[in-house]
Structures are given as structure tokens and as C-alpha cells.
């Protein structure tokens, strides 16, 4: 096996089966942005702190900057590009987004919570959103948007 190793793999991306060849050092974030033409997923810190690169991997949020691309073989990935208007209308109305850098990650985590409302029985909304840093909104807009998205009136 040489240093020019390429790994051929297939995975589900936003509802479609895709086949790609990746290098061992490629991150999922790079694969999405540069090889698959999906630049909606943002790179913030590149070290798993800010959550701007959040995608859903097999249904749960994960930082795509910390996932080797070869690990998505056979898995299911949803990125911000799979978002529909109905997913974000309550967020837009609540002032969830300002500069937009954190927004793709915020939306992906918020969609996960909306699809699993039972999470809010065990975890606080701010705890669930704690992996998505935002330097503009002061977070209240994000929490307001999340609560509107899940149809709750008050913060748990």
C-alpha cells in the first residue's frame, strides 16, 4: 500500500447514494465542500469546538471536521443542503441568525432536536445547543428559534 492510497466508498448523502474516492487524510468536511460541491457546511475552528461544521451522521449531530472521510462508508449523512424552507422559517422569524457563519450547524442541531422532541424531556435546550457557538446573537435568538421550531412556548 503506497502513500497515495485512495479509498473508494459509497454512502448516503442527503437521500442519494454517492460513490467517491478519498485520501486517508481527507476529513468529511473537505469531502463535502471540495469534492462534492456542497459548501453549505462551514469550517469554523477545525477542532470540534464551534459546531459550524455540524452534519447529521446516522441521524445524530457530529462535527464533520473531526470525521475522517473514509469513516462514512456505508453511513447516512445529512447536510444543511437537505434543509427545506419549513425547517428554517421559525428560525428566521425569531432572529436565530445574524452573520450566518454558525447558522448551518445551528440549523442541523435544531432539526435533530425537532425530530426528537423527547430529548427536551432529559436535556435543557441550551445544553443540547451547547456545541454550536455563536458570536452574534447572544444565543437567545437561537433558543427562541429552536423553541418555535419544536412548538414549545417556554425554555425547559
Amino acid at each position, binding site marked *: *500500500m*503506497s*502513500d497515495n*492510497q485512495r*479509498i473508494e466508498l459509497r454512502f448516503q448523502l442527503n437521500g442519494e447514494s454517492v460513490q467517491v474516492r478519498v*485520501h*486517508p*487524510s481527507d*476529513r468529511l468536511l*473537505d469531502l463535502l465542500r471540495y469534492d462534492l460541491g456542497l459548501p453549505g457546511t462551514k469550517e469554523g475552528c*477545525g*477542532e*470540534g*469546538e464551534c*459546531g459550524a461544521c*455540524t452534519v447529521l*451522521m446516522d441521524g*445524530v*449531530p*457530529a*462535527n464533520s*471536521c*473531526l*470525521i*475522517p472521510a*473514509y*469513516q462514512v*462508508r*456505508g453511513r447516512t449523512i445529512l447536510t444543511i443542503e437537505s434543509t427545506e424552507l419549513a425547517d428554517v422559517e421559525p428560525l428566521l422569524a425569531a432572529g436565530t441568525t445574524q452573520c450566518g457563519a454558525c447558522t448551518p450547524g445551528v440549523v442541523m*442541531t435544531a432539526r435533530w432536536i425537532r425530530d426528537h422532541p423527547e430529548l427536551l424531556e432529559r*436535556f435543557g435546550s441550551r*445544553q*443540547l445547543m*451547547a*456545541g*454550536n*457557538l455563536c458570536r452574534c446573537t447572544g444565543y437567545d435568538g437561537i433558543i427562541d428559534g429552536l423553541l418555535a421550531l419544536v412548538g414549545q412556548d417556554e425554555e425547559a
Partner: protein
Amino acid sequence: MRVLMPESVSEALAFKATNPDIVPIAGGTDLLVQWPGQLERQAASYLDLSGLDELRTIRWTQDTLELGALTTYWDTLCQPRVGVEHPLLHDAARQVGAIQIQTRGTWAGNIINASPAADGVPVLMAYDATVVLASVDGERQVPLSAFYHGYKQLEARPHELIRKILVPRREHDVQFFEKVAPRQAQAITVVGVTVAHSSCGWRVVASSMAPTVCRCPHLESLLQEGTPVSCPEDLLEPLRADVSPIDDLRSSAHYREQVMSRVLYFNLGETCPAFRSTR
């Protein structure tokens, strides 16, 4: 850089036997931090364990909780029974990074990464967990409290992989995990204190207080003997015999000692008679 992707544990062990320097990778939450900027420093080859579903198991035997090596923090959070029987596993899991890290990071990876500031290791150690190491030669068990010989120096041999973690099922009348850090999520522990008491005695485990997460035998004997403690300062002498905190970018040795003594004093004051006499 190259990667080997075994399709079974036995194949993984065979790869590890012939490539002892290969670095096992599971969730990648430690190994991929600043990955592109550090490619020069990265290992030449990785052993990708992520496809080995046979390691992604949580099961209970009569006296043991078994966590397969690929069990993530989130996997344990999704099992209410873990939280009922071993609540500190849930307490620690909820404080590792945030959701995006909890869904990827594994308990076994936390052990192998060997950070003195680990959050998964101290609660496992306080519960007297045992690490099951596997190799082509078979399996052996090592108590987690004997797993570290020094900073990032592990008991595991180059051809071994963690197969699972065994956590005894015991009744505890005192147990807490206190993580002191700048914020409640996405923070690295400045001082960590884990205490558990069962019929097997007291366990006091310190994190970010020494080159490794470690048991504190002097503090444990003090609790075992019921030595009267009237203020946090009374704990400093045994504490200093057990740990060796340093000044670093996150805190000072002085602050760490003070905080650890106070966390112990005020948490134990509610349950430990020796701490109650003068309060």
C-alpha cells in the same frame, strides 16, 4: 498517511500484530483536532475500528456492565439503565464536549488518549473498572487504576487493542463527579474530583491534578478511617501526598489544590460523619 480498515476484530488484531506502530482510530475526536495543520506530525498509518459493530455493544451480566470498545458517550446516555445503575457515567458523558463530541467520542478512546484531564476515565476508575485488552495472543484484564504508569504511558502493549471495559455493578451510597471548568460545555477540566463509596470502600479519583487521572490513596484512607475534618485546609496534607498539580495555561497548582479540597469538603459534608462534627 495510510489507513487499514479491518472487517472483524480478529483481522484488526492481526493487523496490529504485524503493524505495532499503527494508531487505532474510532471516533477521532482527539486524533483529528487540527488535523490538516498537523499532517506532518500525524502517524504514518491508522487502524480504522469504526466499522467493527461487534465492538459497539452495551450489555449487563449478573455483576458487570460491559462497554464494548466502540461505545460512545451518547450510546450510554441513550440507555436509561446505565444512568440508574452507574449515574456517574451519565454525569460525565453529559459533560464531555457537547452533543457533537458525545455522539462520536468513545469511552475506550478516552482511556487510550490518556489525558490527565479526561472526563470518562475518572468515573470509570471510581467504579473500579477493568480494561480488557485483546491481541492475537488472547485477552488479559488490567484494572483501570493500574493502567497508567506516567504521562501518556500506558499498560497496553503495542500489539494490543481495548476490546471492552468491565464496570462492576455495586450499590453506592455516596457518589459524585464534579468537573470544574470555565463553562458547562466544550471545556477542558481544570479540576476534576470523583468520589464513590460502596461495600468495597471509598474511591477518590482526581483529574487534571497529576500526570494521569489517578486514585488518591491518602484521601481514601482518611475517609475510610473517619478522620475528623473541620475545614477544607485539613485535606491539603493528604491531598498533596496523592497528587502533584502544576501551573499551566488553564490554571495554577495553588488554585487546583484549593479547589479540590473545597469540592471534597463541601460535597462530603452532607454525607460523611467525620466532616459534620464542626459544621
